[in-house]
């Protein structure tokens, strides 16, 4: 895969506040990349800098190895699906989608043909004459995607495009977006704060917090081997425990030693440990590595979510078998389920 876009030390200051603190990032051709982080983390600003709507304070952007930092938005081979769609309210569906082609002065026939193809792709054939303000949220969303894709950009930017839709529709559109990306075969850069969305759609996830990249990796990397406490907490529910390394393959927390698969830390180095709720098994008190009492047990559909009170902390445990609150149980987990991470400077 060829590198398509390269951010080099991007810094952005708004009113004296650092929104982006030196972002370095490479994005490949045909990748589905998600910028994931809580609101205000700078992910949308990074996208808007790439789109050309905001200028970076420092740093350079390269597109196919050519610097585009000073190229105005309307000359970049990038199109955007905006957060609230930003459809032109005074035009119908056809004219909205055809806007970019009209600007490029393409012939009527070609415009007609390309727009019709797009309408089919997003499943809106027959809607060309409707005013966009008459469409439902999901339909407006599709028009916004079609309006961007019809220009055959090399990169499509999507700024929380599903935020305004309700749960059921959001899940449907997730699959559809992924399908469209595969069909048109271009790079998608997707901004969201929803970790489920990120896991479902992405080839590569970039976790951002406080204007800094926390981790870059595939969904599996990010979920299974979070690099720090923030990533572990943000991607799915977690038990996060402070402890320290005794030696390679041995970690200590809650006054007990545990075997683990991590190594290369300093001796006695303080670390954060993550154990996913679904990796903890409920066993008899004698069999457990830690003992505790079940405080609550909530049915969640696929699993029960239990809160188990141990001597030092409450553990969240996901299990498919019901155990009643009040019972004393043991907690068991395997060495590979203990994820040891470097401590963060700030959190």
């Amino acid at each position: 895969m060829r590198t398509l876009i390269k951010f080099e030390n991007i810094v952005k200051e708004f009113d004296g506040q650092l929104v982006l603190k030196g972002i370095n990032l490479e994005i490949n051709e045909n990748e589905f990349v998600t910028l994931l982080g809580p609101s205000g983390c700078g992910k949308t600003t990074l996208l808007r800098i790439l789109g050309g709507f905001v200028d970076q304070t420092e740093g350079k952007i390269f597109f196919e190895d050519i610097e585009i930092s000073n190229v105005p938005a309307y000359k970049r081979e990038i199109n955007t699906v905006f957060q609230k769609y930003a459809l032109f309210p005074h035009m119908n569906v056809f004219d909205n989608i055809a806007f970019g082609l009209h600007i490029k002065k393409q012939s009527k026939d070609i415009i007609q043909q390309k727009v019709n193809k797009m309408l089919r792709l997003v499943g809106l054939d027959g809607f060309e004459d409707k005013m966009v303000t008459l469409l439902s949220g999901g339909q407006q969303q599709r028009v916004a995607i079609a309006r961007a894709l019809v220009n055959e950009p090399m990169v499509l930017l999507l700024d929380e495009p599903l935020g305004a839709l309700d749960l059921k529709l959001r899940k449907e559109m997730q699959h559809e977006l992924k399908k469209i990306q595969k069909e048109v075969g271009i790079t998608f850069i997707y901004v969201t704060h929803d970790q489920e969305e990120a896991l479902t759609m992405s080839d590569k996830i970039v976790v951002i917090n406080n204007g800094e990249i926390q981790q870059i990796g595939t969904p599996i990397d990010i979920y299974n081997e979070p690099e720090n406490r923030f990533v572990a907490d943000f991607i799915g529910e977690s038990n996060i425990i402070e402890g320290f390394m005794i030696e390679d393959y041995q970690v200590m927390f809650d006054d007990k030693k545990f075997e683990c698969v991590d190594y290369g830390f300093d001796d006695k180095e303080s670390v954060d440990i993550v154990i996913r709720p679904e990796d903890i098994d409920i066993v008899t008190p004698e069999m457990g590595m830690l003992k505790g009492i079940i405080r609550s047990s909530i049915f969640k559909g696929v699993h029960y979510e239990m809160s188990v009170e141990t001597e030092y902390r409450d553990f969240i445990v996901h299990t498919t078998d019901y155990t009643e609150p009040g019972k004393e149980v043991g907690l068991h987990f395997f060495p590979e389920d203990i994820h040891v991470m470097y401590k963060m400077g700030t959190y």
Partner: protein
Amino acid sequence: MSTFRNLVKPYMLWMGIFIIIPMLLIVFYAFTTKGNDVITVKFTMDNFLKFFDSVYIKVLLKSLNIALITTIVCIILGYPVAYIIANTKQKTQTLLMLLITIPMWINTLVKTYAWISVLSDNGIVNSFLAKLGLAPITMMYTDFAVTLGMVYNFLPFMILEIYTALAKLDRSLIDAGNDLGANKLQIFQKIVFPLSLSGVISGITLVFLPSVSTFVIPKLLGGGQYMLIGNLIENQFITVGEWNFGSAISLIMACIILISMYFTRKFDQDKSENGNKKEVKHA
């Protein structure tokens, strides 16, 4: 609460009578002959027929013509001002709009006299020309003077309305245009201008309608012989004492105004209806 309920209908009735009676009187005068009172009524259509005399129709057409020119000049002068102000910083916007609206709070009469001292034969402009050794220009008592006075008086309203429409334009639409390859000129032509039309239309309502029926400005800047429809009505009531004919003219004017209101509103509703329908769909 029930006593309150019982009062609603008589109260609304009385208010209705209070609001309607003068209207009915105007209609009554328009359709009766002079010298009648309520008891000995003679109905007639003469007052209306009289209006369709070529003299009065000419006055009407001239009024409409001047009002139209005033409106067009206000749009041409006002749109760029509103556009430029809407594109400055927020604080500058507030300041500039305050400056623009100050003349709205000065008496029309006073503002018009100020223009007399600019335009009159020995006014500022001609004094200036004389200093340069140029021949004086007669500007007072011309269509130019009347139009200038009207434009000056109504321009702030036009700027205010267009500015309001531009200020509430969604910035992300401009980003979207940019994103789709449109340069500044294309964005203005295809996005900003069409979406600011509702402001232009409210501006037209606020400029065209009062300029059709104004009588102070044409009287002062056009002179005693200068006759627009507003002066005609004023003359009928004050100078000639022809209340019946005056009432008929003002009814005709009200009809013209209501009809043009209807069309501009319809145009505006066609646009906003989309928004409403959307609401319904989401509910």
